[in-house]
């Protein structure tokens, strides 16, 4: 049934991030903080990334996760949070667009 009342721990990005942290991994957390138009994932959605580029969750329908993972590895190295912006036919900043036509802002920060 949809809408389980309990956390789906095996797929919950924040639970997975906590597990990675306990295993001693370096982790970055990406969060959708703003959307315009028909964005695929709502504000508050998470993608979590470890230093090896493993990831769980999503911030889009799969369109920009690759770019977010790349940025996240830099954020893990530097410790400095970044605000990323993706949009349709966005040729200026990241050369990755949302095919759905929306725009999203993603905050990427290191855990700890």
């Amino acid at each position, binding site marked *: *049934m949809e*809408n*389980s009342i309990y*956390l789906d721990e095996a797929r919950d990005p*924040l639970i997975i991030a906590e597990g990675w*942290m306990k295993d001693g991994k370096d982790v970055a*957390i990406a*969060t959708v903080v703003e959307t315009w138009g028909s964005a695929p994932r709502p504000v*508050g959605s998470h993608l979590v990334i470890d230093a090896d580029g493993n990831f769980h969750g999503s911030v889009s329908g799969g369109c920009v996760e690759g770019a977010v993972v790349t940025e996240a590895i830099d954020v893990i190295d530097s410790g400095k949070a970044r605000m990323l912006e993706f949009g349709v036919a966005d040729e200026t900043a990241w050369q990755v667009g949302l095919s759905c036509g929306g725009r999203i802002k993603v905050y990427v*920060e290191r855990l700890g």
Partner: protein
Amino acid sequence: MDPYALKTLNAERRARRAAILVTDLGDGRDRIVREGDPVAGDLGAAIAKAFRTGNSGSVEAEGRTFFLNAHLPQPRLVVIGAVHISQALAPMARIAGYPVEIIDPRTAFATPDRFPDVALHAEWPEDVLKRQPLDSYTALVAVTHDPKVDDFALKAALDANCFYVGALGSRKTHAKRVERLLALGATADQIARIHAPIGLDIGAASPAEIAVAVLAQAILAFRSRGLDAKGAAA
């Protein structure tokens, strides 16, 4: 993100308690706010709104930009009574985003045949609620009309501070119920939280219409948490 904040947030989420992660997008500092924690000013007002709606978003306050990520437990309905009203209520509530569980020890009522695709317990509420306790993100709807089945669950719902407690029955039936709940140790303030007669006053006549009235009243209770109840009938 602060590792301690993440641990605290996950602990709250596992316990089905609401929490908001507040991140200062300027310097990256964050903290967890639980429901009822006092936060002053514009930020406090935005946090209160986020708890009520469950919507996350950015807010400008104190010359800074904060991101509020609201983590609310999935609200749900527990229905005592596998009756005709419940047959209509279960699919409606699920569509509205409130998963339903139905409890009724009367095995003639609680059959999968009558309730396809619903979590159904042909057991006493005492036994089910021991395993799966009620909480403040659960609505309790008691519709068996039978004190032996309804009363324990109603008392448990008041003690667990369920966001909505409704009980089927006329004013006369409810007056007798109040006596029994007082005898069980419920306070007058607690009992005043019970919606009885149940449902918004929309003139509902059929079981399905009563289900609409109950669902609407439960949604109103959920979305006005922490506010004075507005427009609640019964």
